[in-house]
């Protein structure tokens, strides 16, 4: 098919590249300001919404109980949480803008069809800071598409944007192939780039990470290949962030290569010993509670031979964490388990025995740091160290799962993209494509959706103001 024709025979007011949360927030905001808007979504309709379809919550500042959020979560605490995970690698001005604006976003989201539900069971620790979408991110995406459609926004699926044409500091048109058809030019008065990071371009990941990246699993959409990001950088736009930085967690090694989403996560690590391919332990499994540590384990496993780890527990721990999507490997002896996992049985049995001998009695408490630490073991396990000795034994293969990459376009507080010679005149960016400005490293649960919503709305507003 060819692209739809804009109303009144004029070019589109606002072209939105991408079809996830940030893109939709921008499109809705611009349409509500009276603009004609066209969304070019790269994925086919069933996969629309980019990584947003896999998300589940929105981290939100609030001064008192609001909607499903309990208590208060104020700007300073929010900002400090961000500083902690990014180790200071953030742009304070933009970060505070996102945090401060998040509070007014929640009612906006509700008004535009998003439904929230109280914190999901197993994530009660987030009930104060994160508002959960009823039905998850795909349900949010559906709500926004319906709202956009009601506002007259046009949407084209399977629209691959190949090139953003700049004439000096001005965007003129995009080169687009729809449903694999010939490249056509779509002109607009302004453009919002919200087409995500590059994490599903494995080749690009490999260039940044080295060959190890070929073994990474991509948790999100296979459609975020960073074509537009690369095109903009190639045209001299300023980038921010480190191409090796990404949201990378340890997930079930049997997960699909792409799009496994939330259910491939494994929460067993704190109750386990984790060994690498050689049967050696390599990091303190009990450093902190899992919500605070899951995001470092992707990189830890990525640094091991063949980018694989094996988390081993016994029957005492099997009910202490959320169910896994695939059943664990199970055996009655440690040697048999190791063999089933493809590891050296004698070596694994020795590693586990050494660990067991280093465990000390204590009061085990699964949901908070209990101080049950090993003695004289390197590396130590500093919490939840209980001997793994009660069969049956269970094992899970761990692999690095990339959620999204941080390398992005540099924007200012109006979401305007920084070109080779200062700000571009009519190009804005929102969502993962610019999140690197705020997330230099590390991750804060639900913050990606906050960045996308805040900057999506800013980009939509600014793009509309430019047209007016």
């Amino acid at each position, binding site marked *: 098919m060819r692209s739809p024709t804009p109303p009144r025979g004029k070019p589109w007011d606002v072209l939105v590249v991408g079809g996830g949360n940030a893109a939709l927030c921008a499109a809705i905001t611009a349409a509500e300001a009276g603009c004609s808007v066209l969304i070019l979504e790269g994925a086919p309709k*069933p*996969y629309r919404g980019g990584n947003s*379809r*896999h998300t*589940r919550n929105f981290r939100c500042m609030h001064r008192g109980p609001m909607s499903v959020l309990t208590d208060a979560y104020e700007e300073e605490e929010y900002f400090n949480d961000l500083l902690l995970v990014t180790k200071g690698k953030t742009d304070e001005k933009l970060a505070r803008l996102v945090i401060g604006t998040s509070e007014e976003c929640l009612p906006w989201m509700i008004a535009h069809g998003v*439904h929230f*539900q*109280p914190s*999901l*069971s*197993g994530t009660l620790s987030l009930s104060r800071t994160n508002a959960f*979408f*009823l*039905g*998850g*991110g*795909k*349900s949010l995406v*559906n709500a926004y*598409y*319906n709202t956009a459609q009601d506002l007259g926004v046009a949407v084209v699926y399977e629209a691959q944007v190949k090139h953003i044409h700049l004439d000096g500091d001005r965007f003129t048109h995009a080169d687009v192939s729809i449903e694999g058809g010939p490249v056509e030019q779509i002109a607009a008065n302004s453009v919002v780039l919200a087409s995500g990071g590059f994490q599903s371009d494995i080749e690009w990941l490999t260039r940044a990470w080295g060959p190890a990246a070929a073994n990474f699993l991509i948790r999100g959409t296979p459609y975020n290949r960073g074509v537009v990001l690369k095109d903009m950088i190639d045209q001299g736009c300023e980038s921010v962030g480190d191409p090796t930085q990404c949201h990378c967690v340890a997930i079930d090694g049997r997960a*699909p290569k792409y*799009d496994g*989403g*939330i*259910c*491939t*996560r494994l929460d067993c690590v704190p109750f386990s010993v984790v060994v690498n391919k050689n049967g050696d332990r390599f990091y303190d499994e009990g450093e902190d509670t899992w919500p605070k540590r899951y995001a470092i384990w992707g990189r830890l496993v990525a640094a091991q031979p063949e980018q694989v780890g094996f988390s081993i527990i016994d029957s005492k721990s*099997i*009910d202490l964490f*959320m*169910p*896994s*999507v695939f*059943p*664990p490997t*199970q055996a009655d002896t440690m040697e048999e388990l190791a063999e089933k996992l493809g590891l050296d049985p004698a070596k694994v049995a020795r590693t586990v025995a050494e660990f067991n001998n280093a465990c000390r009695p204590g009061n085990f408490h699964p949901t908070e740091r209990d101080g049950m630490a090993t003695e004289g073991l390197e590396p130590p396990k500093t919490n939840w160290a209980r001997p793994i000795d009660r069969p049956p034994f269970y094992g899970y293969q761990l692999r690095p799962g990339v959620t999204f990459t941080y390398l992005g376009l540099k924007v200012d507080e109006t979401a305007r993209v920084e070109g080779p010679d200062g700000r571009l005149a009519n190009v804005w960016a929102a969502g993962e494509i610019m999140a690197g400005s705020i997330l230099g490293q590390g991750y804060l649960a639900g913050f990606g959706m906050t960045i996308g919503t805040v900057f999506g709305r800013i980009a939509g507003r600014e793009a509309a103001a430019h047209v007016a």
Partner: protein
Amino acid sequence: MSLDQLDAKPLGPAMAEAHRQLEICNACRYCEGFCSVFPAMMRQKTFAEGDLNHMANLCHNCRGCYYSCQYTPPHEFELNLPAILAEVRQESWESYIRPHALSKAFHEHGFAMALAAAIFIGILFWVASTAGADPSAGFYAHLAHNLMVAIFAPAFLAPLAIIALGLRDYWRDTGGRWPSIADLKSAFGSVAKMKNLSGGHGEGCNFEREDRYTNARRYAHQAVLWGFLLCFLSTSSATLMHYFMNWPAPYGLLTPPKLFGLSGGVLLTLGAIEMIRLKLKADPELSAKRVWRGEFAFTALLGLTALSGLLLYIATGTAAVRPLLAFHLGCVLTLFLMMPYTKMVHGFFRLSALIIEAQKSGGK
């Protein structure tokens, strides 16, 4: 997790597929707030047959989970929870209600039901035209009261007994206990508001407009349910008046049988028409496809029963009464006799599931 699978008896294909899908759901849990199925799922890591039957009968086919799901086809996980739970639910009715062959025949084949209805209508025509019409008997001129009772009392009670036997086994296999007042209050409250078709947020379900929420099916179902209950109340009040107040039919407009019957008949007729309209718009892939025709025929029969009852009232004193009466009573007889073997049976299992869920969740 299938930790106990080796010990348990193997699940049938539909059960096994439901088990596969629910394991994935249980590792995601985004849909927690839509309905009662997900809190029930989250109580355990592994699912036995009784658990699967319980969840399947809790599911109201609102489809909220399907349209919100990251893992529906073409995703390789191929989740379609509404369809697989519909199939397990259907199989549960067919296996708990005896004889199984009748269940299968009438659930699946709308034609079988139409044929049954035609036969019963025919019988009543024949009875009405031969069994001594007595012009002095007022309303019962076409069909004597005692004869009606002789036909309908067993036709009503025998199916109920069959259902009760099936429910007893269902109750046992899904771990239900003797219900407390609180359990009943919770379950009936849920039915009265059709809470499980509210979407959890009150905007309804994703039945006929894909990923948009509407309350159409929730309201249509309530019209059918309340309409049916009002019609039942109409008959019951007439029975009481007949036997205990020595007040035989016909009844005037401002009497309980007429007031209940008229309002119930209108609600049931309109509700059934709307249910059929919605069914025609909804995606059959999200339901138990093999019983689509049977369900359609059942809903049509409900609507025709109500409509013929209303027409019968309008036709009072005309020559149309006798054929309309035979038609109406034939429909009623089919509804009653087929109760264990048609969609009608869902009400009994659904209510049981809601009561048992109230017990299992501790009223949460």
